[in-house]
């Protein structure tokens, strides 16, 4: 049985085709992970492009898109080319990059969007930092329309995050940790959607984690705005309970949310409001995690487990196989304008289809 079969052979299996009995296995296109942090350049002790590519290949991911928040920040063409060249040397999988939306991701001045776009940047983002200024966001959206490129937001109002290290609520209060209100996410998305309506452009909210934000995005999509979004496996596999006992290994940004939010994320994936699942792979060393919770770094690795954690929800019935593959492969390809994401006649030679 081939899940993709009905589309490939709509009528019947033609007589002159070799029939391969896959014995219940699923043939899917290689996965596209649209949010990966590597340590190259600058933090090679955390992850090199080579190790990231190996991790991706091990997890069935054949295309990754790297965030620009390296050291130095990928905010100019030379650095973008450096990353592309290093990735080509590894050659294991296909590696693409985003570029910084603002110079040095400071949130003040636009980076050279036109030149970077020409050099192959798939989108513009300040990585784990929100583009906080409404004026900067407005100009980014507006200017990016010239190139039809994507502006990717980390949707959180920094002032509301403040000193917060986990989701606000009873658990945070019991642990004595400063909380981040869930509203910080939806407020930023609502603001950006207004700007999108005003300025045009293509807007992508990266890692949507709350019911309120999913509702707002569903409405904006219904209104015809050019908005897409993704989430990461930890937001549908875990809830805020994972950080009790100060487990810093589950400290991520945005923080793990309530159980109700976790269910909403799964529902959003099932109904297509959330377009994609990105691993938000963020390698950390023990030194930055084995610390008091307040001091520990955000982030978890995810390239190797992206597929497994998603498939868990296929097996338990929360998602269908096609919904999962759509979010892991087809939609990321469409959003980023990449080939792949589907099994077509010409794609047979592409690496990693399995």
């Amino acid at each position, binding site marked *: 049985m081939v899940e993709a079969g009905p589309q490939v052979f709509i009528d019947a299996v033609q007589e002159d085709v070799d029939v391969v009995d896959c014995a219940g296995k699923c043939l899917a296109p290689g996965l596209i992970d649209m949010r990966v942090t590597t340590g190259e350049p600058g933090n090679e002790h955390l992850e090199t492009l080579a190790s990231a590519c190996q991790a991706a290949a091990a997890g069935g991911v054949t295309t990754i898109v790297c965030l620009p928040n390296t050291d130095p920040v990928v905010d100019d063409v030379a650095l973008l080319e450096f990353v592309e060249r290093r990735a080509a040397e590894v050659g294991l999988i296909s590696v693409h990059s985003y570029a910084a939306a603002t110079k040095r991701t400071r949130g003040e001045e636009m980076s050279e969007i036109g030149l970077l776009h020409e050099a192959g940047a798939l989108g513009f983002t300040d990585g784990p930092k929100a583009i906080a200024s409404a004026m900067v966001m407005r100009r980014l959206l507006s200017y990016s329309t010239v190139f039809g490129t994507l502006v990717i937001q980390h949707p959180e109002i920094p002032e509301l995050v403040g000193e917060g290290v986990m989701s606000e609520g009873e658990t945070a209060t019991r642990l*004595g940790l400063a909380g981040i209100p869930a509203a910080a996410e939806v407020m930023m998305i609502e603001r950006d959607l207004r700007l999108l309506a005003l300025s045009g452009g293509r807007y992508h909210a990266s890692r949507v984690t709350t019911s309120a934000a999913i509702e707002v995005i569903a409405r904006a999509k219904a209104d015809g705005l050019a908005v897409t979004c993704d989430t990461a496996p930890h937001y549908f596999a875990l809830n805020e309970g994972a950080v009790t006992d100060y487990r810093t290994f589950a400290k991520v940004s945005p923080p793990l949310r309530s159980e109700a939010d976790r269910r909403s994320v799964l529902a959003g994936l099932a109904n297509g409001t959330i377009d994609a699942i990105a691993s938000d792979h963020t390698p950390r060393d023990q030194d930055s995690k084995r610390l*008091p919770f307040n*001091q520990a770094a955000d982030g978890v690795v995810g390239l190797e487990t992206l597929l497994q954690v998603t498939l868990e929800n296929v097996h338990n019935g929360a998602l269908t196989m096609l919904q999962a593959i759509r979010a892991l492969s087809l939609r990321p390809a469409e959003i980023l304008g990449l080939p792949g994401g589907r099994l077509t006649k010409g794609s047979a030679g592409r690496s990693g289809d399995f």
Partner: protein
Amino acid sequence: MTRKHSSLRGRTLINLFFENSTRTRTSFRAWPAKRLGGDVINMSVGTSSIKKGETLIDTAMTLNAMHPDVLVVRHADSGAVHLLAEKVNCSVINAGDGTHEHPTQALLDALTIRRRLGRGLEGLTVAICGDIAHSRVARSNIHLMAIMGARVRAVAPPTLIPAGLERMGVEIHHDMERGLADVDIIMMLRLQTERMKGSFVPSIREYYRLYGLDYEKLKVAKPDALIMHPGPMNRGVEIASEVADDIDRSLIREQVEMGVAVRMACLDALVSAQVAPVGKEPVIHIRDERADDPHNLQKCPLARPGKRSRRARRGVGRGWTGGRGGSTGLHRRGPGGC
């Protein structure tokens, strides 16, 4: 209490204070050595390698190699003591971690109330007033007072009430007059401006006017309502001087005295438990007699000094456990049980 005791003889206690403290540190410092016969090593951030960039876990491993019997730790980050306790194989006492817990303070508060009233806390109404958001003392007291049968109110402006507090069995008030109505005990908390990032109240003047405890606001409480404060006090910020110094109503000095007693008792309880041979450690679980759940343990034997459990009275073991990561923050580790 002044009786000399030798239960700490030959034992090493390390006071590890990553944050300033006067009361807690002193009561863990001089007294145990003097009265319980132990050796005390005091370490503070200024003199340790922490300033040189050593991580908490490295500090823990270094101290662990000195084979102390008890570590007393205060740290500015919630959960830091918990983290440290996982890495050492001696007893660890939480002397306050961030805005999480300060268990010995809650124990001494309960003891102070018991001694003054000559009875348990059942049925009392306790109002905790002030900067609850930044207070570890408030959290520990909310747990302990509720376990001991008191009703707990939190009285503070909404900006100083942490989210979800009502789910911890606390009645919340934003108005002193309503919050203090008919209460038996008033616990004032210090406005912890050093932990505040940004403005939580407009001004000290306004805060004192609305939330500072003076005789006028005290009128609505029970006529014999008692006043407590974990210190250090900011006179004229959260409490009027004449209220703080009222010998009939204020328990503030007694709290400091009980602090020494409670901390000595904690040390005694922990080291006594360590004497037992490996694998046969006596552990007393003092049960909360009101709770139906047999696993719902009241983790603080010191909270009821006059009324020890039956097992304790029979002399079954002499140690007690705080449970791994338990809310009392008192971590017992068996020898080698890292």
